[in-house]
């Protein structure tokens, strides 16, 4: 059997726990708990919805598909843009160190709103047309992204080391800044190297 002193200690413990629990809502009004790390995820998956079988050797007038996804861990609802762009190996990629997006024009833009912890995913369908190959150069005249036909003037020279005419499709993540009322590059991008092969 417990002694009277043991019982007193147990009562005091229960009283303390109860009082603290009752005070928590009031304390939380004035004290902000440290939030976890705030960030956004941007990912690209292959046509089988896995990180494999990404399109690589591409031909004209053939459609290719990958998945693009964004997850919001910013702690509140956020408004994103995912801008799909194309470049050749000589044109610069986004520079996340200095928060500088690529200067290439957006070929297609997804408008995405996500609550905290939510994930968005959609397909990215693309095909190339008006491809030409002359001596050591290749060029692409048009790209169709999710049904939107865009005229291009992209060219790439033969890469002797990797044996191909390389282009890179990439997606930049932009987030809406409430203070500036504008979208800002969110220092995230994913890319896909493509080797243009024989024209049809």
């Amino acid at each position: 059997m417990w002694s009277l002193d043991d019982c007193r200690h147990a009562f005091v413990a229960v009283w303390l726990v109860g009082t603290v629990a009752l005070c928590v809502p009031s304390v939380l009004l004035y004290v902000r708990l440290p939030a976890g790390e705030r960030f956004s995820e941007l990912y690209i998956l292959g046509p089988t919805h896995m990180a494999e079988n990404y399109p690589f050797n591409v031909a004209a007038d053939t459609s290719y598909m990958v998945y693009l996804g964004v997850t919001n861990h910013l702690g509140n609802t956020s408004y994103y843009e995912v801008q799909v762009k194309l470049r050749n190996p000589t044109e610069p990629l986004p520079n996340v160190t200095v928060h500088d997006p690529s200067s290439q024009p957006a070929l297609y833009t997804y408008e995405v709103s996500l609550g905290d912890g939510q994930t968005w995913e959609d397909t990215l369908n693309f095909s190339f047309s008006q491809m030409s190959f002359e001596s050591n150069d290749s060029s692409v005249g048009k790209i169709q992204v999710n049904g939107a036909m865009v005229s291009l003037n992209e060219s790439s020279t033969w890469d002797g080391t990797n044996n191909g005419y390389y282009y890179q499709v990439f997606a930049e993540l932009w987030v809406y800044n409430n203070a500036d009322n504008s979208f800002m590059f969110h220092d995230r991008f994913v890319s896909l190297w493509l080797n243009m092969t024989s024209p049809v």
Partner: protein
Amino acid sequence: MGESWLPRHLKDLSMILILALGLFIASFQVVSCTDRDDAAARINAADAALKLAYHAVGDAEVSGANITELVVWLNDAGGALSGARTAMTLGNYSEALAKAAACETGANEIAAAAGELETFAVEGKPSGWMTASLSVLGSAVFTIAMFGVWRLFKRQYSKRLLESKPEVA
């Protein structure tokens, strides 16, 4: 006289026909330009409306409203805007116009719904003063209750101790 009239006026007729054709093509291009401008203006308006809707949803979220459904609607409106831009690049201005209009209407409805949700959330939310008062009152009631229970328990404990028979080793 009737036979000689046609060759004499053939040149004039052909000039008139060429002029009429030119006028027709020019008017067609003007209509096309207007369609494109209308669609572009509507897309810009839809874009602005979507941003306003997002702000409204953000405000509703801060006030503690449940905005899960509004986020789904925002995505639908965003999809319509992307569709409008796609139609624009394809030169399908009527579809671009329709999709931009759908986006704008949806965004305006979202903003209105977010405003209502925010009002409900603010009205239903207990104030800081109320929360603090309830905490203090709850703690006081709990302390008094614990003290009472302790006194009862102590009395019962002492009574049981006094009534118990001593054990003989």
